[in-house]
């Protein structure tokens, strides 16, 4: 792995995005719109948005980045550019980390805009510091990116990539603690939710909005980071120079 090739790849991915304003809009504006819609929906019911708004903040960046990353990298596999890259000196981690860096940068932009919108426009009450909320949103978006990179290795068409949504993403949303606190779930489901990264993302957000400090915030956040790094390593291991 070399820094120059990783940065070249990140730069190239960002330049591709630069030619695609619609994807930028999806990444930067869509989460805010969805948070706004959610806030509006519960505008007559006091406290509901404050209870769920934070978790929504964790969810949308995750979903959006999962979709965009898995489709983008799949396009690279299908267009022959990945095969060509695999004959150049680029390392497999250069490729994966390059993508993660580019989308990570977009995730920072997305988090700043979404958190600002949620707090200042939608009036989300946060007891903890705002930067922590932003940090969690970025880490969640990176988790989406990492899982998207990994998922694209197991899909042959864009259609198959989208099929990972109901398989990989929706169960995590249902069991993540958004619809029911995790400790009230049936034992088996609770045990399963303990293994899903999004559960920890939502735990972190809830800890921040509740004003918890120290380990209560950092422990679940570190679990999400560990899943993200693990998915990136797996993604780079599943990348093959030789294909059938």
């Amino acid at each position, binding site marked *: 792995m070399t820094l*120059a*090739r990783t940065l*070249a*790849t990140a*730069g*190239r991915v960002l*330049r*591709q995005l630069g*030619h*695609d304003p619609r994807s930028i809009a999806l990444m930067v504006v869509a989460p805010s719109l969805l948070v706004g819609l959610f806030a509006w929906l519960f505008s007559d019911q006091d406290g509901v948005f404050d209870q769920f708004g934070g978790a929504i903040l964790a969810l949308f960046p995750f979903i959006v980045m999962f979709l965009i990353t898995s489709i983008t990298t799949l396009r690279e596999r299908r*267009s*022959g*550019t990945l*095969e*060509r*890259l*695999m*004959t*150049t*000196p*680029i390392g497999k981690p250069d490729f994966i980390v390059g993508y993660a860096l580019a989308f990570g940068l977009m995730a920072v932009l997305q988090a700043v805009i979404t958190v600002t919108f949620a707090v200042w426009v939608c009036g989300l009450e946060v007891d903890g510091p705002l930067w922590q909320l932003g940090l969690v949103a970025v880490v969640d978006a990176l988790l989406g990116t990492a899982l998207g990179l990994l998922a694209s290795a197991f899909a042959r068409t864009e259609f198959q990539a989208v099929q990972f949504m109901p398989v990989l993403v929706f169960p995590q949303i249902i069991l993540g603690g958004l619809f029911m606190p995790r400790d009230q779930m049936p034992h088996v489901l609770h045990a399963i939710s303990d293994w899903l990264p999004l559960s920890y993302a939502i735990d972190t957000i809830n800890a921040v909005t509740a004003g918890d400090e120290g380990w209560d915030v950092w422990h679940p956040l570190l679990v999400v980071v560990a899943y993200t790094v693990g998915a990136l390593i797996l993604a780079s291991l599943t990348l093959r*120079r*030789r*294909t*059938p």
Partner: protein
Amino acid sequence: MNKLITGSAVAVRDLRVKRGKNQVFDGLDVDIPRGEVTGLLGPSGCGKTTLIRSIVGVQKVAGGTVTVLGAPAGSKSLRTRVAYDTQTASVYTDLSIHQNLHYFARLIGAPKADIDRVLEQVGLADRRHQTVESLSGGQENRVSLAVAMLGRPDLIVLDEPTVGLDPVLRAELWTVFRALADSGVTLLVSSHVMDEALRCDRLILLRSGRIIADTTPSGLLAGTGTKDPDAAFLALVQKDSAPSSGAEA
């Protein structure tokens, strides 16, 4: 492996490749000489692309050896010495021509001046800031070809680089290929257009995963007693099919 000394750029020995249920190669041997333009010809589906992919080291092989410039195909040391252009243009269509070349030049560590050189060679210098998707199919192929000429590769492998190009452009590209070979670069160019055969130094004719001729353009015509390569190929196919379809390497 002792073929290294003989001066071939590529030595394929007993190559066996299976794609899906299809046995593409079952013990293929072939040598590609250094510093020459070798044409890899044959009908589509004969195994040209699979052989090319094996040489550049992206094909999973079931057995045998492929030695490229003295190292096993796909070795790390070959990644700056071997350039590969896939059959369909493998460039980023949403980037400009220049952005594509800039990226690949950075990956292989080619100097910036190379970008101008290859753009001149493929005749796209005045379009450098256009996105690839706004180009015609032939122009897109030329961008992909330009990427393969970046840096100073010792072996350039081109899978059907002239498909969909008009005759004038084809002639121009063959001039570029010839100039590259004259400067010591080894070229392996696949094609299913038989009249391109006459522009090569060396010819390898593939059919159903077997080599039915390994010759020179004049040798091809003389050996079959024909006047044009199309007729020569047909004659070879007939000869090949005649003694049943027994495997004869």
